[in-house]
Every structure is written in C-alpha cells, then in structure tokens.
C-alpha cells in the first residue's frame, strides 16, 4: 500500500510522525519532493486561496499518479476552544474538487473540540484502514512519536551580535520556494536567526490574557512565540513572514506589530506571493539589517541642529 503525503502545510509540523507511524504499520509512504516552480504552476488552478494551499495542491498533483491513496487529515481543532485555519478544515474536499486525477483520499477528522481523544481515534481509524487492530496502531504511533524530537526554539547563530526572530508559519519559512531562503540570507549578513518552534513549552510559558481571544492554533503559536522571544530578550528585531491572502495573519500580524512596538523592538512585515523575483525581498531584508546595525551605533541620537552630523 503506497500512501502519499504532500510536503506542504501540516507536513512540517506533524508529517514526520505520521510518516513513521504508517511505516511502522508496514505501508510505504511517498513524500513529494521539495517545492518546484512546476508544482506552484500546477496548484495555481485554484482561485483566491493562499499560496501554501496552492503549493499543497501542486504537491498532491505531483504524487497523485504514484500512490494508491492520498493521506489528507482534516485538522479541525488541535486544542479545546481553538480551531485550525478554515482552509485546513476544507482541505480534503478542496483537493478532491480541484485535482484532475484524484486518487482515493484517506481522511480522518482531528477535532479536539469535540473529543479529547480525537487523535487516538484518528490513529485507530488509519490503522484499521491498513488492516491493523487498535493495539498495533497505538503502539506504532507511540514508537513514531518517541522518535520525533521537537525543539522549543531553533537558533542559528551568525557572527554579529544581532539576533532576529522570524515569526512565520513553519510551512512558509521552511519551504524551498515560499521561504525565499530567508534564514540563510540573514545569516549571510551575519545575523543570528531565531525561529520559535511549535512546542507546547512555549504555549505554557505565556498565559497572556490578550491572547485568549485568538482562536487559531497556529496563529496563536506565532503570538506566543513572539511573547516568548520578547520576554526573554532574545531578539533585536522581529520579522513577520507572511503570504498574501493569509486570513489569520492579516489580523495576527497587527497584534504582533503592537507587541513589538510596545517593547520598542524593530518590526518588519514581509509578505510574499507567487512572484519569485527576489530583488524586492532582498532590498527589504538588507534595509532592515542596516537599520538594526545603525541602532547599535546610536544613529538616531543626533543634536537638534544636526551640527554633529554634518561637520567633518
């Protein structure tokens, strides 16, 4: 049995554990390769959805001929009182409608709002699809989960003393094309980069009241990551990395911006879309890094008559 998993969206957070789980149960898992321009073009048949979902469709189209079944879980809710983005909720139906040659779809609902053992039920359903009983499925999952380590914060250091936090969804920042290699580019400019991960450690760190109203799990993690980085004074600047058309980000970016401004931390919002021209992206990054370096040299602290600045 060949099970296909597109390398997009939830793959970056949960894909590895599901892959190991299916392999424990004896199935062959086919993961699509890193994003290519061809996949983006293929996924562009969909109107108006955000770019990560288009990428997902492109990946699904890429592997649809090589697999017996496509695994597309329906992530409804990962925590009580929270939801995932609406596009996750409708993902299996979207793929079924938009993919021209759609193989059978194995879909399980993961809805922690309805039931605390939703994940366990999903695991058992997937196991029974492969003909395994509940005990085998659950022990396969346990082994897979143990093998996957998640870090609270991924820190990559650069030479200068400056650190920039990147607040963005994992499926954007880590993608080969959508991520625009932002981490490498910042490190080339000698900046240390910190990317808050998706660990619950961060979630329990901050019980800020104002976060109570944010009901999207992934968006909430971005805010919690921001609060974590700011409270621990880990960053000199913040970049909010988003994509055109992202619904939750359009509002959550404002909340992150206000948080950064309250704490006097330089903030920049970068919005990417299908255009792959890099010049605009690079100039903005360079300008931001230059500004951070000038702050260290008290560049904004000049006399009212500008005498010191212009007298050589």
């Amino acid at each position, binding site marked *: 049995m060949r099970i296909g998993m597109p390398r997009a969206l939830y793959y970056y957070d949960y894909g590895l554990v599901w892959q190991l789980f299916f392999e424990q149960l004896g199935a062959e898992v086919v993961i699509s390769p890193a994003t290519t321009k061809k996949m983006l073009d293929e996924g562009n048949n969909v109107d108006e959805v955000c770019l990560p979902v288009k990428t997902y469709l492109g990946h699904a189209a890429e592997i649809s001929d090589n697999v017996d079944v496509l695994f597309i879980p329906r992530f409804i809710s990962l925590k009580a009182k929270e939801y995932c983005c609406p596009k996750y909720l409708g993902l299996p139906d979207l793929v079924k409608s938009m993919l021209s040659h759609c193989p059978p779809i194995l879909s399980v609902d993961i809805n922690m709002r309805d039931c605390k053992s939703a994940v366990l039920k999903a695991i058992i359903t997937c196991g029974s699809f492969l003909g395994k009983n509940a005990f085998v499925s659950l022990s396969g999952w346990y082994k897979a989960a143990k093998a996957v380590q998640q870090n609270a914060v991924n820190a990559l250091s650069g030479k200068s003393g400056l650190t920039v936090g990147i607040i963005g969804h994992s499926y954007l920042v880590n993608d080969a094309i959508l991520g625009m290699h932002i981490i490498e580019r910042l490190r080339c400019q000698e900046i240390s980069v910190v990317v808050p991960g998706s660990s619950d450690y961060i979630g329990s760190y901050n019980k800020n009241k104002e976060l109570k109203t944010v009901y999207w799990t992934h968006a909430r993690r971005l805010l919690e990551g921001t609060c974590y980085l700011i409270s621990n004074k880990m960053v000199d600047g913040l970049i909010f990395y988003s994509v055109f*058309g992202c619904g939750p980000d*359009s509002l959550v970016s404002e909340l992150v911006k206000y948080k950064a401004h309250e704490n006097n931390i330089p903030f920049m919002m970068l919005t990417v879309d299908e255009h792959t021209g890099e010049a605009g992206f690079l100039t903005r990054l360079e300008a931001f890094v230059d500004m951070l370096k000038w702050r260290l040299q008290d560049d904004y602290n000049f006399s009212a008559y500008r005498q010191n600045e212009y007298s050589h």
Partner: protein
Amino acid sequence: MIITFPHIGRMNIPIKALFEGLGHQVLVPPPTTKNTLALGTKYSPEGVCLPFKITLGNLIEGLEKGADTIVTCGGKGPCRLGLYSDVQKKILKDLGYKFDIIRLDFDYYSIKNDLTKILPLSRPHKIFNAIQTAWAKMQAIDYIENKVCEVLPLVVDKLKVDFLCKSAFESIDCTDNRFEIESIAKWFDKELMLLEHIDAKTLSVGIIGEIYVNTEPFANQNLISILGRMGVRVYNTLTLKKYILTHLIKRKSAVNYYNYIVRQASQYLGHYVGGHGIASIGQYIALSKQGFDGVVHIYPFGCMPEVVVKNIFSRAVRDYKTPLISLAFDEQTGIAGVVTRLEAFVDLLRFNRS
C-alpha cells in the same frame, strides 16, 4: 454612556430600538458611504476582509460624532469575525479615541461582564419590552425587503418603490408602538399593490454567500436592486432575521431547515468551515432542486470559508447544472464591473429559459 455600533444593512433600526428601550442613549453612525470605506481602509491592515474595513469606518465616524461606548459582536468560529473587536479596539485607541468597548459573545464570561453593563437588571419587564419592540421592527424590515425583491422586477415605476421603502423605514424608526410597526408594513403592501405592474415571467435567482455582503447594500453595490431592475426576482437566502432565528433563538423549524441544508452539502464538503461556507453549498443544491434559474454567490475578497467553498462549487455545478456566478467584493467601488458581469449572467439565464 452613548452607544454606537457598526452598520449592517438596516440593523441600526432594531438595535437602536433595543438599546433605547433599555434606557441608553444611542448614536447611530452616519450611513455608510465611500468616505466611510476610505477611512476604514486607511487605518485597517491591508489584507483584512471588507467587513472589517467598513465597520472600522463606521466606528470612527460614530466616535467622531461623540459616542463613547462601542457595542460589537464577537465570534468563536474559524472565520476572522471574532478577532475584529480586539484589533479594531487597538487601532482606535492608537488613533487617540477614548471609549469603552462591549463585545457580545454568547458565553458565561461575556454574559457576566458585558451584558450587565447594558442590561438594567432591576427591571426585567423593560428588557422584555425592548426585545419585543426590536424584534417587531426587524420582522417588519425583513418583510419589506422580501416584498421588494419579489415585486421590483414587475413594477414599472421602480424609483417609487425605493421612495416607499425609504419612507417605511423612516416611519418604523420613529415609532416604538408594535401595532404601528405592523400597520406600516401593511401600508407598504397596499401602496405596492397600487403601483402599475407588468405581466411578465421573471427569472428567479438565489443569492448565497457571506452574511455581511448579503445584507449590506453598500458592500454589494446594491446588487439586489440591480438584478431587480434587470427583471430578475431575487431570493436572498441569508438575511439577519434568518440567521438570528437559526443560530441565536434556535427556533426548531429554522434549525431543521439549516440541518437539511448542511446534509445537502455533506457530499461536497465534509465539515463546517466557518462563516456560512457549508450553508452556501447546501443552499446552492437546495435552490437547484427548487428549480431556480441561477444562483449568485457573493462574498468579500479573501473571505476564508467562502474561498474554500468557491473552489468546491465546480463539482456541485457539474452535477446540478444550475448556472452559478461568484462575485468577490473589496474596497474598489467601481460598479461597472459588477453590472457587466450580472448582465452577461442574466442573458445566459434568459437564453437557457428559451
């Protein structure tokens, strides 16, 4: 406490009646215009949906006129509505306005904190009267709007219909007597009957989509009026009265109908996606089965549930064959694009009929 709130369709009339009935001073923001939209767009985040921008503009205009309390609704669903109040509050405070915000959710915390600020708890009969008056006004307004949708394609003097509507709504706003409100609706009926009608077969078109754009004429470029003038009888599947009956009051017949709609949609969309996404698909199928000539799907640009559903329509349209057009609305107010698309769509429907 001077209360203001954002506009949505004609809701300002029942809401004003409700809060005045509870003993508060109400300041209805000026009617939504291009200026409102410009103000809202200027201070909103760029990628946010249209209702946020228009309602922010309404609130700015309301606060400028002297209001000091904003009453707005919350939400818990996957769509962005629930976060509107938080972000709008931050934007307005940043702009320097001083105000209190009351966010109406239907959960224990909200009821305990927010409703106690607006409800005079010592006079329960006052609350009951206020609710009854507001509900009577809403029913009258809903009746008038439905009547206009039915009758506009058949009436010769369409401007007179607009004039009658305006007078009726103004009269409803000015009275608090429930019998007077009912008699205004009957008067409107009678006046419509007196107008000259033509005898023609009209096309029937259903409107589905997101509730704000369905209900607020400024947001949808007065689409219902445009269609009526093209000789189309419009049926709006999503009005505020229907929404309140189904999801707030939970009247049994409304809830059963909603469940029927969701069952229709289940073959194409397996779960609620927030907003009115699943209802849009279900309504399309229900309207096709009822023999409607066409369906118009309207939503704000970027609306997450509707965008998911828009792409799923292709399968449903292949199966049910009822023509469907999807129109997205944003802060560009050029009406020509909307009119040309609707004209082409109506021509297609006429061709199909013949």
